[in-house]
């Protein structure tokens, strides 16, 4: 009896220690993530649009201003098309390369290392280098000129398949494509690594069994492998979406907002309006809209993961 009570007591002491271990981090997260988000939300509802803080209540004024603002409307268009094209490019390239590398290629690790190394670089380095590579008068373009193509890349102000929508022309800005090239160059390795791990995790027996049943290679991919990779695709989409929705440094280093804001994004606008223009309330409102855009993807995903774990 006595010993039993003793172990019980000890267990609860340990349990308290565990919570004590975790407490500082929880406190930091509550203050610096949730507390600060709330504070930003509060600033976004204030009149603080000068150097001097002014926390008087402005209601939704800053939000209404943004949604009627040409620059912000352009940002939302760019963010939408950048996200779609970037995620599409990363998934197609990453999955394609993973399938190729999974086919017992000689020098597999050599190739894998080449496709993965940009992941070790910063977006600033990528931006600086691709700005040089895609400069309208440089080598890539000299090469393309021999085929009669003269792309302007990131200085192009055309909007593909555009139609007037309110103040902005709605369509894919050509200049965004150059950002997609640079960012896909950097992030494809991530999708490749994920898919390769996924492909290696599919038991060989599964393919063998399908082959025995007379399935063609193409059918095996369509009916067995791709469905098995679905959770990985979900993870890749989540990781890439949260990168693309908040992207700032790559574009800051590569093109800036661009003429007519063809390469502007909310992250860049937030930085410039807050820290260069001292429009803190506008900046805070942009930040809250960015957070909501990310949360739409992330919260259901995290919620599902949590349910799957417990």
């Amino acid at each position, binding site marked *: 009896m006595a010993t039993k009570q003793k172990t019980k007591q000890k267990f609860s002491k340990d349990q308290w220690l565990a919570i004590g*271990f*975790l407490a500082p981090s929880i406190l930091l997260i509550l203050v610096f993530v949730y507390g600060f*988000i709330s504070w930003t939300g509060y600033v976004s509802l204030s009149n603080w649009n000068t150097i001097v803080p002014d926390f008087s209540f402005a209601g939704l004024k800053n939000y209404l201003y943004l949604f009627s603002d040409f620059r912000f409307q352009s940002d939302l268009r760019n963010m939408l098309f950048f996200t779609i094209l970037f995620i599409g490019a990363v998934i197609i390239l990453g999955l394609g390369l993973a399938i190729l590398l999974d086919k017992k*290629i000689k020098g597999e690790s050599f190739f894998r290392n080449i496709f*993965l190394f940009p992941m070790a670089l910063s977006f*600033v380095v990528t931006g*600086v280098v691709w700005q040089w590579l895609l400069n309208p008068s440089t080598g890539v373009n000299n090469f393309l000129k021999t085929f009669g193509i003269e792309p302007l890349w990131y200085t192009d102000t055309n909007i593909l398949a555009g139609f007037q929508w309110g103040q902005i022309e709605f369509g894919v800005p050509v200049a965004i494509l150059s950002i997609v090239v640079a960012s896909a160059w950097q992030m494809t390795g991530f999708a490749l690594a994920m898919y390769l791990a996924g492909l290696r995790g599919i038991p060989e027996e599964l393919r063998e069994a399908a082959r025995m049943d007379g399935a063609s290679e193409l059918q095996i991919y369509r009916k067995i492998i791709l469905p098995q990779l679905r959770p*990985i695709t979900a*993870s890749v989409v989540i990781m890439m979406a949260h990168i693309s929705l908040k992207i700032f440094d790559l574009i800051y280093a590569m093109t800036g907002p661009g003429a007519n804001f063809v390469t502007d994004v909310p992250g860049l606008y937030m930085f410039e309006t807050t820290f260069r223009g001292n429009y803190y309330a506008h*900046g805070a409102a942009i930040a809250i809209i960015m957070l909501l855009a990310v949360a739409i993807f992330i919260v259901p995903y995290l919620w599902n993961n949590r349910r799957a774990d417990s």
Partner: protein
Amino acid sequence: MTTPSHYFARLLKYFILIVLALFFLMPVYVILVTSLKPLDEISLSQMWALPTSIDFSSYVQAFEELGPNFLNSFYLAIPATLLSALLGAMNGYVLSKWKFKGSETLFTVILFGMFIPYQSILIPLIQFLDTIGLYNSILGLIFVHVVYGLPITTLMFRNFYANIPDEMLESARIDGAGFLGIFRHIILPLSITGFVVVAIWQFTNIWNEFLFAVTITQSDQQPVMVALQNLSGSQIVQWNVQMAGAFIAALPTLLVYMILGKYFVRGLLAGSVKG
């Protein structure tokens, strides 16, 4: 059974891989070729040509300009990496081995911090750092990276510790080891790989981070990425110096990747929530 079509398919596979590999390496070639040229050989139309003579002067100039910031990045990344890894290990231990009612929810609450756009906390963060006197200091940046590194390091250690069998802990508990004893004598010795993976991941992220660095620090306190951006944003564009600067700024993380590539990839996979 090598029929002609099999042979063709093999050829096509290697052809695609080689073309894409060349595309992925193209920037490296251009960085190296451009940075080794003297300024008078730099012109946009000649950027593919090899230099007629190798000239390291752009590296000398880039290092003169970036050197102090390069050191700043080390002063920032090393302590921030170590501290956030340590906190992550503690959290990961609790959240994988000492689960309690509501701990899964707490973990999700922590994890959300990994995905937030940092713009959404930046204004109060700067006000806060200013109030406690850490604005425009490397110490302030260290603090920021430790705090906002918590979600990812916690996630990585939690996934890592989940692979340590519970039976091991059970038997230690029967031998009389408690929460701290198990951590010190069982968990920590088994954590070396975990620490390597998390440290590589954090070092790379902190070294490469830009938004915090550019908003929290100025001039002589800036890490190398901000200095590189300033170098390329200046009025006179010296492409050879810029490319040399980009190479210097990228070198530490590239070396980490080349030497510890296996752990780097593990970090990538571990940081993708499901792992």
